[in-house]
C-alpha cells in the first residue's frame, strides 16, 4: 500500500488524534474471480455508498468487533476484464480489503483487493505529498545553507492537520489558562465556526491562528454564540507550551490568601 501518510514531528504528534478519525480517500484495484459485465459492477458499487458493517480482518491492529463505517462515495473509474479500478471516500478505519471482499460477495463472483493507494487523509492529499527522498534531500540542503524556506518546502505547520476540524478562536487572556488544562469558558471566545455540536472534537486557536489545544465541545455553535458564561469545551490535548502567553488568571490558593 502506498500513498498519503502524514508524519507528525516532535510535539506536533498530539494532533494525530484529529487525523486518526478523519475521512480517507483511496484508489483501489479490485480483482474479480469471475467474468461479470460492467453495468452490474457499476450498480453494485453504488449500493455500497452507505453505512457499512465491518468486522476487522484477522490480521488487524484493533479489536475484532463489528463496527459501522460510512462510505461517502464509491466511484467506478475503469474496468479491464477482471480488474476493476475505483475511487472510494470513507470514514477513517474502513477496511478496503474487506470492502472488496464484500463487493465480490454481492456480485456473486467473489473478489479481492489487488492494489491500494491512499489519495487523501483528512485535509492532506497526494497532490501536495513528498517522498522520503525529497525529505532526505531537502533536509541535507537546509543543513548546508540554513535557509528556512527549504524546510518550508516539505514541513507544514501542525495547524494544517486541523483544516477540516471545526475551530474556536480565543482571546490572548484565555490562552494560558487553557494551556494549563482549564476548560474553555464562553467569555474567552471571539469567534467560531459552524458545525460544532456536543461531543465534537474542536480546535482551539489563538487570534494569531496558533493551535492552543484540542477540545471536546460541550455545546453547539449556535449555543456558544449566545452564551455569556459557562464551559464551552473541555481541553483534551494541550499543544501550546505553558507560558507562551501571559498568565491572566489567579489560582484558587492565591485568591484565598488575598481574601484573608
Amino acid at each position, binding site marked *: *500500500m*502506498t500513498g*498519503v*501518510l*502524514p*508524519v*507528525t*514531528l*516532535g*510535539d*506536533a*504528534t498530539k494532533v*494525530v488524534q484529529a*487525523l*486518526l478519525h478523519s*475521512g480517507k480517500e483511496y484508489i483501489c484495484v479490485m480483482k474479480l474471480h469471475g467474468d461479470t459485465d460492467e453495468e452490474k459492477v457499476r450498480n453494485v458499487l453504488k449500493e455500497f*455508498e452507505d453505512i457499512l458493517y465491518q468486522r476487522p480482518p484477522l490480521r*488487524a*491492529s484493533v479489536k475484532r468487533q463489528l463496527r459501522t463505517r460510512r462510505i*461517502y*462515495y464509491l466511484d467506478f473509474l475503469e474496468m479491464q476484464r477482471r480488474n476493476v479500478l475505483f475511487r472510494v*471516500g470513507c470514514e*477513517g478505519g474502513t477496511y*478496503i480489503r474487506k470492502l472488496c471482499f464484500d463487493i465480490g460477495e454481492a456480485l456473486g463472483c467473489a473478489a479481492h483487493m489487488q492494489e491500494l493507494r491512499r489519495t*487523501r*487523509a*483528512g485535509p*492532506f492529499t497526494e497532490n501536495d505529498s*513528498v*517522498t*522520503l527522498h525529497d*525529505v*532526505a534531500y531537502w*533536509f541535507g540542503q537546509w543543513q548546508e545553507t*540554513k535557509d*528556512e524556506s527549504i*524546510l*518550508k518546502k516539505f*514541513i*507544514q*505547520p*501542525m495547524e*494544517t492537520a486541523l483544516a*477540516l476540524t*471545526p475551530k474556536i478562536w480565543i482571546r*490572548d487572556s484565555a490562552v494560558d489558562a487553557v494551556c494549563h488544562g482549564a476548560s474553555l469558558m464562553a467569555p474567552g*471566545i*471571539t*469567534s*467560531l*465556526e*459552524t*458545525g460544532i455540536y456536543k461531543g465534537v472534537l474542536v480546535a482551539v486557536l489563538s*487570534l*494569531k*491562528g*496558533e493551535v492552543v489545544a484540542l477540545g471536546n465541545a460541550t455545546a453547539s455553535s449556535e449555543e*456558544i*454564540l449566545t452564551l455569556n458564561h459557562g464551559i464551552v469545551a473541555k481541553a483534551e490535548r494541550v499543544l501550546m507550551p505553558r507560558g507562551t502567553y*501571559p498568565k491572566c488568571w489567579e489560582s484558587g490558593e492565591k485568591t484565598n490568601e488575598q481574601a484573608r
Partner: protein
Amino acid sequence: MPRSISPWEVQRKLLIKAEDKTNPKYGHRPNERSAEELLRYGLVNLDKPAGPTSHEVAAWTKRILKLESVGHGGTLEA
C-alpha cells in the same frame, strides 16, 4: 441511498462573537515559526512507498530529520 457529504466537502461559516486584538509580544503566526520550532511543531505529508510499514516509514523520517519523536496519522493498512 443518496451520496453523503464527505468531511472535505463540508462548508463551514465563521460566527463572530466578540472583537479583540492580539498582542504581538506573545506567540506568533504558524507560518512565522523558526526552523527549530518548525521541526518541533510541524508535520510532513509523506507519500509512503510500497513495502515498508507505516511505522518503519515514520521511524526513517525520524532518523533523517534527527528528531527524538515522530508520530503518524493513521496506519496505512488495508
